[in-house]
């Protein structure tokens, strides 16, 4: 069904594209949100990806690869959007003592808070590759198709992003041991 829609949209059928866009919007938005961490920017990224999709569909050779291709456009749009906003935003940290979920153990809240803070400090590229791996559970092979780079490069980038996340987490913990320092 989707292949048929893609084929029609590729030929310029606006109704088919509309159906494709409606079907894809939730998955695209949810992934964009994980990368850019802002509802408005996620919407911008999703819209930019969909417009690029409409523009570039004639160049998509294999309609069965539509989903991976759409993620490629989305990741690119999300990174672009996040880059533009990067210097104006930071991840909000939950102040000490604020409990988001009373059923959570305090340690778990702290860990989640640390992850949120550290994840927000990563570059959009690093966030994107971690989202593909740990949110979409994509294999290296699928990620290679989505990102348009060799599998080896994906493994290397993933490793780099993971190491960076670990470094930021360690730095955050070290900083929190020094009460005078304000993050």
């Amino acid at each position, binding site marked *: 069904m989707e292949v048929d829609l893609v084929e029609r949209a590729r030929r310029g059928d606006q109704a088919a594209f*509309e159906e494709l866009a409606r079907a894809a919007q939730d998955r695209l938005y949810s992934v964009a949100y994980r990368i850019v961490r802002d509802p408005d920017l996620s919407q911008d990224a999703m819209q930019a990806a969909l417009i690029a999709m409409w523009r570039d569909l004639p160049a998509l050779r294999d309609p069965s690869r539509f989903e991976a291709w759409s993620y490629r456009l989305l990741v690119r749009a999300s990174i672009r959007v996040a880059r533009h906003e990067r210097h104006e935003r930071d991840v909000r940290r939950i102040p000490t003592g604020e409990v988001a979920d009373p059923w959570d153990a305090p340690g778990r809240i702290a860990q989640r808070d640390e992850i949120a803070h550290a994840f927000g400090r990563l570059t959009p590229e690093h966030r994107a590759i971690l989202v593909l791996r740990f949110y979409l559970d994509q294999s290296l092979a699928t990620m290679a198709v989505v990102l348009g780079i060799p599998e080896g490069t994906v493994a290397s980038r993933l490793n780099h992003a993971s190491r960076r996340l670990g470094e930021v987490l360690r730095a955050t913990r070290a900083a929190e041991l020094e009460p005078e320092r304000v993050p």
Partner: protein
Amino acid sequence: MNDDLDFDPTALRSFLEEGPELAPSGAIDPVLAQVRRQPRRRFAPVGLLVRLREAGERLAPTTAALRLAWIAVLLALLVLALLSGALVGRRQPALPGAMNGLIAVAVGGDVWLLDPGSEATTLLATPDLEETALAWSPDGRWIAVALAERSSARSHIDLVRVDGERRSLTGPYDTITGGPVWSLDGELVLFTARSDNRDVVLSVTLDGSTRELASASGAAGPSLAPDGRMLAFTAVGTAGPELWIIPLEAGPAAPRSVSLADIGDAVAGAPTWAPNGLELVLGVVRDEPGGWALVRVWVSDGTVEIVDGPWSSDPGPPALAAGPGGIVLATSRGDYVVEPGETLAQPTQSRALAAMAVSPDGRWLAELLGVACGADACPVEVATIRPDTGGAAAEPRAIGVNARIPNDEPFTGFLSWQPLLYPVDEIAIEIEETCTTISDGRESRAGTISRHEDVVVSCIDRASDPRLSGTRTITFAIEIRPDQSATLAGSSVLRNDDGEWAGTFSGSVAPGYTTHEVDATAQGSGAFAGLRYRFHLTGDGDAFSGTGTVGPGD
């Protein structure tokens, strides 16, 4: 993989699970509206060629006659596609804004001037000189050109004007190895040269007085910091390539060198400063095995970080250019990157890339390309593109240069984009405007005429020149006659982040309160001080379109 992780992947997964799973209601409506407004061209060349190739693969002709017939069919279809493209017409990409002047290109030993608006090209012919590099002065009046005499190969720097006026600035030297680069105040030209068996970094004033700033083996690629206080250049130390950063003014800062010997064997091109002045990016190449890496150097402590690579299999190191938005990087794959790592556009064509320049307004990128290379040579063209947007502006707009680079010569060249803060001539503008009435004003009647005063309308203006886009607030009086025709006059202020355009306008409305016609004039202030904007708009009262001009004020 998880064994290597420095964090708990379950915690990361759990964190990523948080957040919305559904797009907000109506989130794709603007997209669908745009798709409806912009149906794709019926004969999209890319799609057509893809289909032809697929069809060819499926048919797999087995005899010579069938193969010939198939080739004939392909050629006929290609001609038809080209004709249909010509008949349907091509959407015109947007033009670089009026702050951006001519693009100067040094390629194939000549200097070309390109007008990205009209696509006119001018060759500054110098049969006895071979120009290799150039840079516009900050006021856009002069081009500093590094050149060599064809007879003796001795090198000079000349100053050249758009009208062809030329004067020698400094020389001769054995070779000019880097630059020219202008100081921010336009008082100095900085460059590196080899002279009397020494590699030196020099500055020269506009009256030709030179001063040696430093001497280092292999000095090349001078690059001025955004604040104009430091100069970076590359050199060859005893262990390998080095990056040097020297202060240009007396003060506490001392010259500093950073060794790149652990990374590679040589530096490719000049280092590029990030707009924040805190870091530089440069390409480093390695001989065995071949390849290149993109390296970032932090100015504060000399930390070196590989940001792309190492050892890409691309045939050449990236071209780099700096603009207000960050460092732009392009590889031979054709990626556009703002700050290393972010891909902004996909390759548009098979090409060789020699150089890039960011427009003075920071929104456009010019690329020096070799395209459609044949067996012997590559024809040269300059493409302008606005990489941060979609739509027409993101389509490269190519300007052909009548030069060909032989395949057995390295494809090198130089681009510089003229700053044009005050255009000499008026520049045409296209405008689209949507308006909302904020206040109907005070109504009074004089016989059969209904008069409204202090009507306030707020409009969003989108113009082909970004300086004329923004929010326009209009206050006016309108007299409406019994046939619902009207005349109106008032004042308006167009504001954006960089300044204001304030002025007056008058216009009319056709009977039945249908077509609105408005003529307006406005003077700029803020960043637009000294400029005048005149325009004419036609619309239905809510949506308008029109044209205008911007040029020097009264």
